[in-house]
């Protein structure tokens, strides 16, 4: 039976850019979210910097549960006057963001470094 899996890597806080980069790998659905939620919330709860970057270059799938969670994070970051960026989305993951119209509100520069110019 197929089981989805999601892994999370949180880079150390970058004081030079006031940024936190989070790498997501695998499949971001309800099961995936459950497996990383605690670790992700620990990382997000202490975030007070400017840039929160989700590197989803190794994300193979995302559904509405994953999108819903990211929208929640986006709203939180915007409310604390931060910048929320998503980088490295694969073509089919880009399609999901495109379909839902998320690129209308979420910044998605070509690289992590490019986020810092926003």
């Amino acid at each position, binding site marked *: *039976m197929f089981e989805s899996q999601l892994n999370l890597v949180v880079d150390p806080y970058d004081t030079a850019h006031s940024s936190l980069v989070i790498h997501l790998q695998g499949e971001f659905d309800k099961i995936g979210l459950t497996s990383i939620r605690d670790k992700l919330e620990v990382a997000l709860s202490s975030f007070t910097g400017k840039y929160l970057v989700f590197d989803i270059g190794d994300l193979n799938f995302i559904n*509405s549960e994953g999108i819903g969670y990211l929208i929640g994070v986006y709203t939180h970051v915007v409310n604390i006057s931060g910048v929320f960026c998503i980088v490295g989305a694969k073509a089919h993951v880009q399609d999901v963001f495109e379909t*839902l119209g998320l690129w209308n509100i979420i910044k998605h520069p070509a690289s992590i470094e490019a986020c810092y110019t926003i």
Partner: protein
Amino acid sequence: MNFFRRSFAAKVFGILFLLGVFLASGLLVVKNVYGYSVIDTTWILYGLAGLFLVVIFIFWIQVSRPLKAIIVQMEALITGHEYKKFFTDRIDEVGVIAHFFNEITRNLHKFTGKLAEGERMANELDVASKIQRDILPVEAPQVPGLIISAKTRPAAEVGGDSFDFLTVKNATYMYIGDATGHGVPAGIVMTIVNTLVYAYAETSQNLLDLMVNVNRHLKKRIQKTLFMSMLMLKWDHLTKQMSFVGAGHEYILVYKAKSGLCEAIPSGGIALGMVEDNSKIIKEVVLPFEEGDMVILYTDGIVECRDMSGQLFGVERLKTAIAKYASQYSPELSIQKVASDVGTFMNGHQQDDDMTLMMIKHVGDQKVEQSKLSLATAWTEA
């Protein structure tokens, strides 16, 4: 002393030992003081009879009576009658049985409480599911110039997929929506959206205005992690024009009768509930829709269903299936055929998300009577 408290047998032996010592002492006293021995068979028999009675009495007081009381309560428990707990500080065998009974009844009470709570929640879920079923139309409408068929199959007790049809003056509005995930939260979002669509359909200036109003009021009422993608179609009865507004939904598929091909048009916009004001992001678009063509709306449960190896059904498979069936069958039969293809593809894999499919065929000025069965929205496979 603890040994005697823990064991009833030790208590009996202890008492018998004391009685034996008392009796032997008595015999020695009689022999030494009065100078004769009372070792007589009759006295021994009296002594044994007396001991036997004492043992019986102790056994009745210490074992038989409390055990009988426990058994009465056990019978009451088993037969579903009211039962009582035991209050005792005994820690011997009888005490252990009494404490065991108390523990069992306590756990049973806890378990029964959880069972009742689970039953109550299941009943509430049934009610929520019924409310949702009552909101979704049980059959598609008969609209001049169109044949409409829609089928839905929720994944959980309460689904997040939604669709409906409403006619206001000379226009029919048809929408399909998909709230985040499924289950109760998704069901609540779709219920709010459905209510808002009905509330604003009559008063909104146009399709765009309707979607802006629905979004503005939805955003105020839901958590930031919830949203709903939607595609709203408007069929003008007089001009025979089909237009749509997309709110971050899947592609609109259009089957072109002339070419026999199925085109995928991005719905555009942004899902409802994501931003406070979507007026600058969404737009109304007129669809290229001629007689014989079919418009197909679907939710992601169809294109994101998986086979046993984890592979997705995908938009391309859906387009291919539609192109194959739309030329031969009515919208209702085409949906059944697609549903069958989806079922074959999944091959027993669990349905993870709600599935909804709507097909609308342009029939020009033909008058087509549809049966109750063909208008029904319950999901069936060919």
